[in-house]
């Protein structure tokens, strides 16, 4: 029974807080280091001692990456394919999830089981056949070809179904009493009521698509069709033996998503937990 006990607990708490904060800084340090290195001239980069800030600050590597490489086109490809994957995945899953959740039709359970099963299937094992398929359709080196095999995201449909299942039946019935057609129930009630889910799933799908490497790496042979994730590691064109240049490309590739994340931090956080089926 000593009155200092609460005090002592606070000391321990403070220590944990401090450790956490320090760990966070160390955790993010490689990111900082990457950025700083990309701002140094090449000869400073390879000095055998540590300088946490460039002696000569230079943006020349960025200028080079932006003007001498196809990074702009890669951006465009990344954005286009990621948006395409996101849009098609979310839209098709939305409709299908709604149908499975709310409507009666033959083979509904079978379809649902198929989707659940596909959750476990490693899509990576299908690369050979995807390649053959896409090549056969003449879609290599095209946005469509990059997009198609990336459309298997059973999580999206599973989450949609769960959310539609959880919309109280009352809403559907209220709408039925309100003379609403099935299409109007979907578009005026269910979709708007679940905007949050749609945003979240779109964010998550977009992150996945933006970061995907293996398939775009296989499906693209022309540099002008590469996505940024593939481009910066596969085309030595401009980066060669230049460490800082490589890093500046990395920073350029990572920066937009990183900034978008910092701006929409809450949304992204929600999106992730939601995609895992945890109500945050």
């Amino acid at each position, binding site marked *: 029974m000593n009155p200092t006990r609460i005090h002592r607990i606070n000391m321990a708490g403070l220590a944990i807080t401090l450790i956490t904060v320090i760990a966070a800084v160390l955790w993010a340090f490689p990111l900082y280091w990457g950025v700083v290195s990309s701002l140094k001239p090449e000869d400073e980069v*390879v000095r055998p001692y540590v300088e946490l800030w460039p002696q000569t600050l230079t943006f020349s590597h960025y200028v080079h990456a932006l003007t001498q490489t196809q990074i702009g086109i890669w951006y465009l490809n990344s954005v286009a394919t990621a948006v395409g994957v996101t849009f098609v995945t979310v839209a098709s899953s939305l409709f299908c999830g709604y149908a499975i959740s709310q409507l009666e039709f033959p083979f509904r359970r079978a379809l649902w089981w198929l989707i659940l099963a596909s959750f476990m299937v490693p899509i990576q094992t299908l690369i050979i056949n995807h390649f053959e398929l896409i090549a056969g359709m003449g879609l290599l080196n095209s946005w469509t070809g990059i997009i198609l095999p990336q459309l298997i995201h059973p999580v999206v449909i599973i989450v949609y179904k769960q959310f539609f299942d959880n919309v109280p039946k009352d809403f559907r019935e209220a709408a039925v009493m309100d003379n609403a057609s099935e299409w109007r129930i979907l578009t005026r009630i269910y979709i708007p009521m679940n905007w949050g889910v749609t945003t979240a799933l779109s964010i998550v799908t977009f992150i996945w698509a933006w970061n995907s490497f293996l398939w775009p790496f296989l499906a693209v*042979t*022309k*540099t002008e069709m590469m996505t940024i994730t593939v481009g910066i590691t*596969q*085309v*030595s*064109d401009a980066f060669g*033996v230049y*460490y800082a240049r490589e890093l500046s490309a990395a920073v350029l590739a990572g920066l937009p998503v990183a900034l978008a994340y910092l701006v929409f931090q809450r949304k992204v956080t929600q999106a992730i937990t939601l995609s895992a089926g945890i109500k945050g």
Partner: protein
Amino acid sequence: AASETVVWWDFLSGGDGVRMKQMIQDFNKEHEGQITIDATTLEWGVPFYSKVQTSAAVGEAPDIMTYHASRIPLAVEQGILTEVTSADWQQMGLGKNDYADATWDAVTIDGKQYAVPLDTHPVVLYYNKDILGKAGLLTENGVPKGMDSRDGFTATLQALKAAGVKYPLGSVTADGNFMFRTIYSLMGQQDGVLMSGDEFLAGDNAEKLQNALAVLQDWTNEGLQSTYTDYPATVALFTSGEAAMMINGVWEVPTMTDAHAKGKLFEWGAVELPVIFDHPSTYADSHTFAIPANKGKEMSKARHDAVLEVMSWISRNSLFWATAGHIPAYGPVTNSAEYKAMEPNATYSSLTANMIFDPKSPKAGIAGPIFDVMSSYFVPTLNGEMEPAKAVEEIKYELNDL
């Protein structure tokens, strides 16, 4: 006629990449309104050749590409190269007589040619004259001492070490693909061969490989050579003065020349590899131009003509390519007075006599099966993780299992 765009892939980065870009620019300027080269540089080695292979199989390969001569047998077996017919040669205005026999032979399979040779590129020893000079390790001719024997060269390395040099020798020890060149050269110095008929490392060839590995591992064990160093790091170590010498391809010559011209580099030199064993011998390969056989896609006559024009033009103008350190394949260029006056090419031009090439087999060549197997074991061995004997045993097993 409408302007033809020729899609071009190469794997040339660094100093020679810059040279090639310059040549392409010149070509485009000269052919304005007729032919435009649309060039892309891909990652050297396995990535490049995998990409080429799958691209050709699905009809997405370029119109022209650089190709290593060593890999042509494999490519022909896979059917991804288009023959360069005698009509083509005629149209280009080139022919057998313009090339050294070995070079012509390298692009010829069963009497048919599959590529147009561009150059030959051996490996050489780069050295830092300032450091060696200060340590008293230069001969009067300005070349390193001890180039004639294993002991002599090792002594030089040790002296450098004693003089406080961190890495007497910079080696691309992290990259088995690269080290193949050095090791194959050392085998060549013992008259070792990889393939005798269909058998790999037959007879005492295994032992010769082991000797080569042992030398390099010894240097590592004695701390005379940079360990786990990848390609760019090796160059950086040398140019920053941390490594006093470096074994690398002639294609790094322009990097040095350029830096030196800008006053950013010490005095340097490049010589033929030291004779560690019986006699001088240096591994070399050739860059060539090839036309992919795009499956299901016939190349138009106009495009084909344009491609031939590209190959012809570059060959004729390959004197500039020589500034990239390489030895041009086109005879008229190497025979010219200008070429003969070029430095440092002249210093190491003697070694052409001692060049050895990959075995002519579909299993050989850059990023080919042999390459693949051997390089896997080079890294652990060169960095002291694996005994040379063990490595040779494994290599032999895997090669014969191909």
